[in-house]
């Protein structure tokens, strides 16, 4: 019995059935089989006899394995699986055992290729005619379909189990899309929740609508909160005012004292904060809050996940809705820089102390200009006790506080270094330093060596201080305690000092042509940061400096990481919904201000209901005719809904059954809406909704089950095939009306063009690109943040977007397939262009950017999504890149390595000094790996000059990078440019065929089989004679016979 080696019982069953049937029906290939038999007799059996039968033959069967009796006929025999096992152990160099006599290279090669050919013959024989299987909607299709049907933008599918991938890598494959009981429970629960949301009763519910206006002194005499906690940077409540708005958008005026009190109670739950933001990057002015371009956060754990710096957020504690659409309105303008002479406090990551400890006295060695203060000279102490020359907390979990005065001789930046006893990380040592109302928190980590010392120095941060006398404080919860604190002027060439001393006009001139942008997010406050997600597209802020405009953003609360509803939790820092924004003109360097953004007010409205009752409701409960009975109306509503949900007219008896159901339960529910809702929930659990059901055209099935000419699908099915192919969702009204008229087939070309012009094509492209090009690998990749500090989460996000936008551009412009391999443009925004080292691409939106010759960019193969997704996080990974290229781009997936494949052998002398390319050569020199890798590695070596994050890197480990290699067909190439040239010339058809084949598999929701080869080649011919344009591929697939069967 032929079975594949898998772990799942279900899988075994499926493949057994498929192969069992196929053995009878598969296309014979007698020539190949004859050759296999001859080779066995003449070559293979003698080899086996020499090296194997001794232990695995008639006399002895070590491990229960007997090779001499294995049937060499892979097709009619039943031993293919055992041969496959033999192949694995030979390739894995497990057999023959190292002590025994070894096969020569030629012998091993002969044995390996004979087994591979045999397996190939078996596979060929096992492939029956393609039989498309009814497809269940996968997660994204289900979500899109339900969103379109109900006009609700909720990510409905999130709670469903994930979908399996097919052989070609797609999740829309009918064969592997199972429907488990968990799915059924999920469908029911989702349908109920979705219809609860879609169907409304009564008057428009009152929305939460707050507006916070920011400006110096605006809040004096008004109530507003300030939220504290670790790393908090609250805006003083004197500088903002909270307006509670009515439905008309005007501030509500209280009609009584009680109402006024209630409104103030609400205001005490709302604050504005910039938690985690650096204080030299924002400022409250009379006109509003100025935010410099945001600096992305570093990906280092344990971290303080506070978002980019600076970012500002409305902090609402337990006074927000939990579901519905959300509108966020920001009044903003282009801003101006401020004059610098103002006290600020900054963290100084990765800085060494500027002073030293005397090893004998453990005191700070004084140096010129440094201001040193002893702990014991401080005044106003709280929760601190003397311990020798130090102050330490009495109760370490409670906030401590010590104040001291300093005289500042010169205005400027001073580094703050603290001498204190070492504290292990598990005691969460913390330091809070304060000047006036400014505070800065640090959680220092001490090395093992430091923990052995009796005193250590920690750099807390830096302060910009004005000349004269001032006070500073030290302490906070989990305070380390201290013996001395030193303030040392920072060297004059430090970027902070440089930025400070550059003239404001100079800085303003640098950003005069640039626009700030708004990027908004929502989230939950956590103890050491926030869990947040951005929503809506960023918007550039235009107009003159100081010219305010309103920018509106829409989101959906259920899709955002808002706080869980709490039952009774009253913790002081829990239950915060954050609604925030930053200046999305991201900057890579803290000394760059970027174009300043001025924010006058932030407003939130949720749930946002521009019309009432909403369309989600009126599209289900259509206007009722005069004197229409409950039954008639319910029948009409249910029938209409079923037609739309099933994507074809529901047969009368089907609708009738749902109406009967409604009749049987209507008495249990107080309103018509509620009882009808039960019937609609059932509609959404019907397989007619959940599956792409394609009833055969009546009368066309040949008698006797002859399937040589499969019946054609009806036009309703065709409409669904088209829309789930090109929109990843249900057909729209136009497609359905063409199907209704029976004219869809005759309008096919026009419809395909219309659908490709429609923005909904992105739903197709995003999923197709993700699965074809394995963008999930980028998502899962962890890049070493110390080696690649510029690779931020925003670079990662934009790399993905680059690839999606690139494919979208190809479709939009109907460009030739060859552009996939090389193009004279790249789709970039400022953030990604800067990462790649390309200038002159301002702003957050993606657009085609012409590439100068020699830029090293252009085409899919030089995009970060692929290159970074196929590294190991530290170095490029030529094998991953090569396998991807062969599998995804050339359509020739290499066989997987045998089990227990030996990894690169680090015992080779000097191994760690080798580049990965050289390490691979060592690997290839082991005979068990050589043959296979000779066909793989060269493709990966060509990418060697692209680093683990996809940057061009001509040198590595201090040596020039060698990207020269010889491809399996003997072509010598050096680097990516020559690989591209090769792909565009010699391998042109392979590339085109791979694109066609992947799209074909996706369009049909099934894997490609041998019997499709003719169709695929026909499409290729047609595409080629039409300038190899990308849309021709799609048109070709839609016209292929398989698309209609």
């Amino acid at each position, binding site marked *: 019995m032929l079975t594949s080696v898998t772990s799942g019982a279900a*899988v075994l069953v499926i493949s057994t059935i498929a192969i069992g049937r196929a053995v009878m029906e598969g296309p014979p290939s007698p020539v190949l089989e004859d050759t296999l038999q001859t080779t066995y007799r003449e070559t293979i059996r003698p080899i086996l006899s020499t090296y194997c039968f001794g232990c695995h033959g008639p006399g002895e069967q070590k491990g229960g394995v007997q090779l001499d009796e294995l049937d060499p006929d892979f097709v009619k025999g039943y031993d293919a699986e055992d041969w496959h096992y033999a192949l694995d152990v030979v390739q894995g160099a497990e057999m023959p055992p190292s002590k025994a006599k070894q096969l020569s290279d030629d012998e091993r090669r002969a044995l390996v290729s004979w087994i591979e050919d045999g397996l190939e013959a078996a596979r060929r024989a096992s492939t029956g005619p393609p039989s498309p299987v*009814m497809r269940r909607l996968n997660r994204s299709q289900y979500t899109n379909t339900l969103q379109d049907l109900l006009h609700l933008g909720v990510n409905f599918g999130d709670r469903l189990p994930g979908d399996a991938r097919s052989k070609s890598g797609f999740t829309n494959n009918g064969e592997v899309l199972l429907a488990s009981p968990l799915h059924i429970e999920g469908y029911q629960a989702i349908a109920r929740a979705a219809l609860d949301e879609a169907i409304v009763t009564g008057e428009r519910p009152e929305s939460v609508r707050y507006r916070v206006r920011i400006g110096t002194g605006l809040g004096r005499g008004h109530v507003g909160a300030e939220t504290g906690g670790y790393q908090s940077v609250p805006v003083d409540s004197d500088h903002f005012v909270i307006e509670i708005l009515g439905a008309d958008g005007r501030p509500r005026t209280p009609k009584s004292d009680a109402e006024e009190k209630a409104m103030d109670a609400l205001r005490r739950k709302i604050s504005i904060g910039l938690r985690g933001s650096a204080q030299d990057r924002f400022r409250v002015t009379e006109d509003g809050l100025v935010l410099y371009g945001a600096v992305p956060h570093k990906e280092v754990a344990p971290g303080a996940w506070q978002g980019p710096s600076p970012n500002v957020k409305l902090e609402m504690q337990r006074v927000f809705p939990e579901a519905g659409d959300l509108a966020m309105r920001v009044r903003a303008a282009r801003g101006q820089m401020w004059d610098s002479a103002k006290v600020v406090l900054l963290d100084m990551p990765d800085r060494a102390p500027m002073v030293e400890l005397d090893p004998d006295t453990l005191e700070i060695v004084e140096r010129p200009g440094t201001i040193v203060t002893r702990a014991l000279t401080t005044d106003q102490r709280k929760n601190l006790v003397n311990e020798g020359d130090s102050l330490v907390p009495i*109760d370490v979990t409670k906030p401590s506080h010590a104040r001291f005065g300093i005289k500042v001789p010169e205005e400027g930046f001073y580094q703050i270094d603290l001498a204190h006893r070492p504290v292990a990380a598990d005691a969460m040592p913390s330091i809070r330093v304060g000047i006036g109302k400014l505070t800065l928190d640090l959680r220092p980590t001490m090395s093992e060596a430091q923990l052995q010392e009796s005193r250590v120095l920690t750099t807390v941060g830096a302060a910009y201080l004005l000349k004269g006398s001032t006070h500073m404080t030290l302490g906070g919860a989990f305070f380390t305690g201290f013996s001395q604190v030193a303030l040392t002027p920072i060297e004059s060439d430090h970027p902070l000092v440089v930025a400070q001393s550059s003239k404001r006009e100079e800085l303003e001139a640098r950003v005069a042509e640039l626009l700030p942008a708004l990027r908004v997010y929502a989230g939950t*406050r956590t103890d050491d940061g926030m869990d947040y997600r951005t929503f809506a597209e960023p918007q550039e802020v235009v107009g003159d400096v100081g010219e305010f405009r309103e920018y509106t953003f829409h989101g959906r609360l259920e899709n955002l990481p808002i706080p869980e509803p*709490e039952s009774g939790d009253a913790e002081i820092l829990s239950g915060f919904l954050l609604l925030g924004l930053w200046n999305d003109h991201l900057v890579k360097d803290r000394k760059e201000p970027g174009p300043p953004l001025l924010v006058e007010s932030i407003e939130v409205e949720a749930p946002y209901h521009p019309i009432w009752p909403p369309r989600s409701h009126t599209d289900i409960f259509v206007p009722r005719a005069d004197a229409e009975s409950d039954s008639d109306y319910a029948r009409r509503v249910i029938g209409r809904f079923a037609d739309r949900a099933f994507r074809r007219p529901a047969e009368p008896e089907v609708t009738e*059954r749902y109406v009967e159901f409604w009749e049987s339960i209507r008495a249990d529910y107080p309103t018509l809406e509620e009882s009808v809702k039960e019937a609609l929930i059932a509609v959404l659990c019907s397989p007619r909704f959940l599956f792409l*059901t394609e009833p055969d055209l009546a009368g066309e099935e040949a008698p006797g089950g002859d399937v040589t000419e499969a019946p054609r699908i009806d036009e309703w099915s065709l409409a669904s095939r088209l829309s789930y192919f090109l929109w990843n969702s249900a057909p729209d009204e136009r497609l359905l009306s063409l199907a209704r008229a029976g004219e869809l087939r005759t309008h096919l070309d026009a419809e395909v063009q219309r659908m490709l012009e429609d923005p909904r094509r992105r739903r197709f492209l995003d999923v197709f690109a993700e699965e074809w090009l394995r963008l999930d690998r980028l998502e899962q990749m962890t890049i070493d943040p110390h080696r690649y500090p510029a690779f931020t989460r925003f670079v990662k996000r934009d790399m993905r977007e680059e690839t999606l936008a690139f494919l979208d551009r190809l479709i939009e412009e109907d460009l030739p397939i060859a552009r996939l391999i090389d193009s004279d443009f790249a789709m970039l925004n400022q953030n990604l262009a800067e990462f790649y080292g390309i200038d002159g691409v301002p702003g957050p939106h993606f657009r085609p950017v012409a590439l100068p010759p020699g830029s090293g960019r252009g085409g899919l193969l030089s995009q970060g999504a692929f290159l970074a997704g196929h590294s190991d996080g530290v170095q490029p990974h030529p094998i991953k890149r090569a396998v991807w290229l062969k599998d995804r781009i050339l359509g020739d997936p290499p066989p997987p390595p045998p089990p227990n494949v030996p990894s690169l052998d680090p015992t080779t002398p000097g191994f760690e000094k080798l580049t990965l390319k050289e390490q691979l050569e060592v690997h290839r020199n082991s005979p068990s790996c050589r043959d296979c890798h000779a066909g793989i590695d060269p493709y990966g070596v060509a990418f060697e000059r692209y680093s683990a994050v996809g940057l061009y890197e001509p040198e590595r480990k201090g040596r020039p990078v060698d990207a020269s290699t010889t491809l399996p067909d003997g072509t010598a190439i050096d680097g990516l440019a020559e690989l591209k040239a090769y792909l565009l010339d010699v391998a042109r058809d392979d590339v085109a065929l791979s694109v066609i084949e992947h799209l074909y598999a996706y369009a049909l929701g099934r894997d490609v089989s041998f019997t499709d080869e003719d169709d695929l080649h026909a499409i290729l011919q047609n595409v080629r004679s039409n300038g190899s344009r990308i849309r021709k591929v799609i048109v070709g697939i839609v016209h292929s016979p398989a698309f209609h069967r």
Partner: protein
Amino acid sequence: MTRTKSWHLSRRTFLRGAGVAVTMPYLHAMENALPAAAARRATPENPGAPRRLVHVYFPNGCSLPDEKDAANAKWRWFPSGQGRDFQLTEVLKPLEKHRSQLSFLGGLSHVKSRELLGHLAGDTWLTGGDVRFDQYKNTMSVDQVAAQELKKYTRYPSLVLSTDGGVGYKSRVSTLSFGPTGKPIASEHRQRAIFERYFSARGGEQSSAERRKSLAQGKKIVDLVLEDSHRLKRQLGKRDTEKMDEYLTSLNAVEEQVKRNEAWLDIPMKPFSAEHLNLDPNPRTAAKDYLRATFDLIVLALQTDLTRVVTYMMAREDGMGFGDNFPKIALGLNKGHHTISHDNVEGHWEEWGRYDQWFAQQFGYFIDRLATVEDEHGPLLDHTLCLYGACCSTTHNARNYPTALVGGRAMGVQHGRYERYDESTPFSNVLLTMLHAAGVKKESFSDSTGLIPGLLKG
């Protein structure tokens, strides 16, 4: 055409699609549950003696003085010695009499939580989820995985209990349990409300009525969909009927589950005595009574087979909630638990050790009760595997979780050892082993790499 290697690929593809296979044991279990209906008891489809899991958590780590410290011998949480020859310190003395039903595991932690501050790691004790970065990705907790399968035997899938109630907030939760998408499940904490909801005739009826209504709604819809599916199946070509059968099988499974749930509602509660219950303990004055009252309710729930899966968070991390004051109330110390855990004044290890000991006394009381109270299969403890522990060792170090397993002799658990593991063994292996002990034989849980060797028979 050169693309011809798919025969090879099938192995890998299907392995990757392991999500598919996950549903199969469930289906399988559903079917297996039916023939066993002739169980010893008049309960629906009980395949034999129950297998239960209880998870009990304490916050803020445990006392672990340095080995050079004089307090080490007496006040460290972990025993001294190793293997069979371990000796309990003062801290866990209250569990000494159950030595033969007890195992200690040292050195374990969740891989993805090791870099976190200990308090935040508490969000992942039963999940192994990833909450390191600014997208909080928690995942389903092990008790809920168990409950998904064991719920078919009982009235309720699980009890989720705590001292503070609710879910708390991300990074400082007040529940141990998380649903299929990683959302926290609200915990219950008021003893009287719990009793009335689950055990009292009046409250029981009320909640039964609600449940009956929701089950009936679900059942009617499933019936209708089943009927429509059969009709559709007749219209489909042969090629699709296999797929349709697959869908119908799943629908049937769901319908069976609904029927079982309904049947439960018609079976009267086993008689029990509630005289010993204290339903109104005051946590502000009687900390011991407060914890024991909840433990008594857990014993009652297991005894009546109300559920087979329980989580209980005895107090919250980071000085939050009622629980932080227990050391003041119960031991007359002048500090809260969180402060004790950070303390470094003279004698602080002893304070911490004494408080750990106090927790162990309350948990020991629970184990005593389980060993005493019997159902028709014998002492409850023999059929109940309890996990007792925390998510950090010393103060905020999210490694080397204090971990004890108690009970479950009749579930094949082999006790009596203290073993230490290095960091190549993820804590998830303990959770997976517990699932297997409960008969939920998943291939993996979270980032598990296998079972804890030697803990289960066979």
